[in-house]
């Protein structure tokens, strides 16, 4: 840092005494630094830290969003059953309800975990496979590339609607092709709670594979061809060339893909929301959908929704912390 500021100092400053010259920046530099640091810091505080902190605070209240929040404990007034009381402090009751009474909570946690697992084990490797095959320059690779990338260009909302037409029980494409669209033998793809998560994961993987493919393809194009030639000269087969030579050189892109995969599966929301029209179908509970349903619904349970948001935040912190820990440890070395 010090050396760069030295370089930037205008020549006039160099004539000053050395001690001062090293320590101080010109007035202009200080303003620039303050602006460049200050603006992002303010934005970060305003749009990340404040909402996060507010969510944590709100999770200890009971509030419908109408009127303010009294800073006193909730009392069950019970004069008019069901009508919302003004906001009040609810302590850890929201957490208690989420863990014990709220029927969507544990399924949602489980489904988020399954989503992550499927992405890591299936969707992402599939995308990498596509990338490697296309990178080998097979005939018509551009066509395949465009076709596989197409789902990424569609919004998730649109993908949800497209697949809803495919999965519809009586009139859908899939059941018609399978001959299972009669009323007695139909397959209830989106309604059956044992089936619908997997049906949605097919939609999600369809898109995720294309996304990973493009990222990985960019990485593969950047690999020095000399490395491969050297490997071939040394007698390595294609399998060995990839795993021993190409894959290790792609370490940075691998990490990016891992992070993208984790983030995409934790923020999984759109497909389920579109498919369920807001109120999650059984078998499709996700934390993000539950948060939205409680906060944005006709009656807003802002306190309870915030509680679920905090749980999602805590879960997200685990991979983020692991990633940052890894990244910083490497920098220290």
């Amino acid at each position, binding site marked *: 840092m010090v050396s760069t500021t030295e370089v930037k100092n205008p020549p006039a400053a160099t004539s000053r005494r050395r001690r001062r010259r090293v320590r101080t920046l010109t007035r202009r530099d200080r303003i620039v630094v303050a602006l460049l640091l200050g603006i992002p810091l303010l934005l970060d505080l305003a749009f990340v830290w*404040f909402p996060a*902190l*507010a969510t944590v*605070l*709100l999770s200890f209240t009971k509030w*419908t*969003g*109408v*009127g*303010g*929040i*009294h*800073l006193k404990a909730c009392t*069950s007034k*019970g*004069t*008019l*059953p*069901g*009508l*919302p009381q*003004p*906001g009040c402090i609810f302590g850890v009751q929201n957490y208690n*309800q989420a863990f*014990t*009474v*709220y*029927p*969507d909570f544990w399924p949602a946690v489980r489904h988020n975990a399954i989503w992550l697992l499927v992405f890591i084990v299936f969707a992402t490797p599939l995308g990498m496979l596509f990338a490697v095959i296309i990178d080998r320059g097979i005939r018509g690779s551009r066509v395949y590339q465009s076709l596989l990338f197409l789902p990424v260009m569609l919004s998730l909302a649109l993908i949800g609607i497209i697949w809803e037409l495919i*999965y*519809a*029980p*009586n*009139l859908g494409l899939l059941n018609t092709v399978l001959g299972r669209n009669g*009323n*007695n033998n*139909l*397959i*209830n*793809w*989106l*309604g*059956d*709670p044992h089936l*619908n998560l997997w049906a949605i994961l097919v939609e999600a993987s369809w898109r995720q594979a294309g996304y990973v493919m493009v990222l990985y393809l960019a990485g593969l194009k950047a690999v020095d061809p000399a490395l491969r030639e050297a490997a071939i000269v040394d007698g390595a087969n294609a399998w060995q060339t990839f795993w021993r030579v190409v894959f290790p050189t792609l370490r940075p892109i691998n990490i990016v893909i891992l992070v993208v995969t984790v983030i995409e599966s934790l923020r999984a929301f759109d497909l389920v929301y579109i498919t369920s*029209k*807001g*109120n*999650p*179908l*059984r078998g499709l509970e996700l934390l993000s959908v539950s948060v939205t*349903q409680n906060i*944005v*619904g*006709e*009656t*807003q*349970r802002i306190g309870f929704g915030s509680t679920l948001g905090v749980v999602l935040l805590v879960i997200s912190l685990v991979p983020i912390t692991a990633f940052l820990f890894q990244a910083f440890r490497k920098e220290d070395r």
Partner: protein
Amino acid sequence: MSDSGSAPTSGRPDVTTQLSRRTALKGLAGVAGLAAAPALVAACSSSKKSSSSSSSSGTSAVAGGNITFGSNYSDAAPKAAFASLCTSATSKTGVKITVNTTDHNTFQNNISSYLQGTPDDLATWFAGYRMQFFAAQGLLTPVDDVWDKIGGTFNDAAKNLSKGIDGKYYFVPLYNYPWVVFYNKSTFSSKGYTVPTTWDQFVTLAKQMKKDNLVPFAFADKDGWPALGTFDIINMRLNGYDYHIKLMKHEVPWTDKGVTAVFNQWAEILPYCQKGATGRIWQDSAKTLENKQAGMMFQGSNQVAANYSKANLSDLDFFVYPVINTQFGTDYMDAPTDGFILPKKAKNQAQAKAVLEYVGTGEAETTFLKTDAWDTGLANGLVAPTYNAIQKKAVSEIAKCKNVAQFMDRDTVPDMATAMIKLIQSFIDNPSASNISSIQKSAEAQAKTIFT
């Protein structure tokens, strides 16, 4: 909740007394900064004193002016009907109306923030508890002065549906529609079926239809709410209207024997319902009925009849849900009422009230119903010249009822309806005794958190 004593003091805007979401968030920012806690408490205590009505010139005869009208009639047919209603309202009252249409799902989900933000001068909404819920939170303007003028148009049932819990009017109804069992006349006549009036005949008919390779009941519940109607009607047939409303207000626990009986009764006909209901949207099941692959369908005329093509509509007929418990006969049904509310934060209250006065007439309802072949107006004795056979029958069947419920998602707290949607979907997938008892336990546990 309502301290109606506070008179509207001059024309002073109640900026200081209305605690909006924005103010509350500011307050929250204060909490984050550990600074403004006392201010927040002060703000809250004053919010109770919000004056009941900001515009005291409630009388009509407002020449001209403009209002905006927030509408959730987003489907093409009701949208057109609503447009013609607005045109005739403009010509009668001189108030220019700009309609802002929002997709109805989105509209309903956002209603809380909508009413607290910058709402239109009038908005479409639903009668009964679903309106009272927002009126009790001080988000609606009472329209008693409008009802002084239009009161003669409506019967007591419609009046009660338009009142808040505080006894003031907050709503002007437009139409309602019955939840009944639909069937195709041609199917019944060609197979020699007769309309069932008792539960046993109903089940026998379903069995016969299954033998004849028909789906006895077209059924869909991907949207969640359609199956709530079946719960409502079986509960009202079996346990009566009073019990049903008490259950909706959680004055009867969900673990009650009566609720178990409803699920058991329902389980008897579930094998005759279209399979895979939880993955099907109701439009698709209405198609099954229209294609004559299904024999019957229990849903609102606002859905089934509205979804029928013009050519097939003359073949459609309905009967009221058969008697289960002779004590209650066929005295009750779900007949949801839709109409209009005046948001508290509406800017042109006088003009909005003038429009409401027009909307609350038989003439206005007739205008709206010109292009609508499935709803029925609420004005006393209204038989619009455009009514088809279904609408005429609907009017007389609703009139025969001793009481009409609104629908589960309009008679209880919205959160409770959401919880029941999930639980009833689970019942449809697995109607076993053990699942019924776990559904009831979960419903009661959730009701306890919602109704306190």
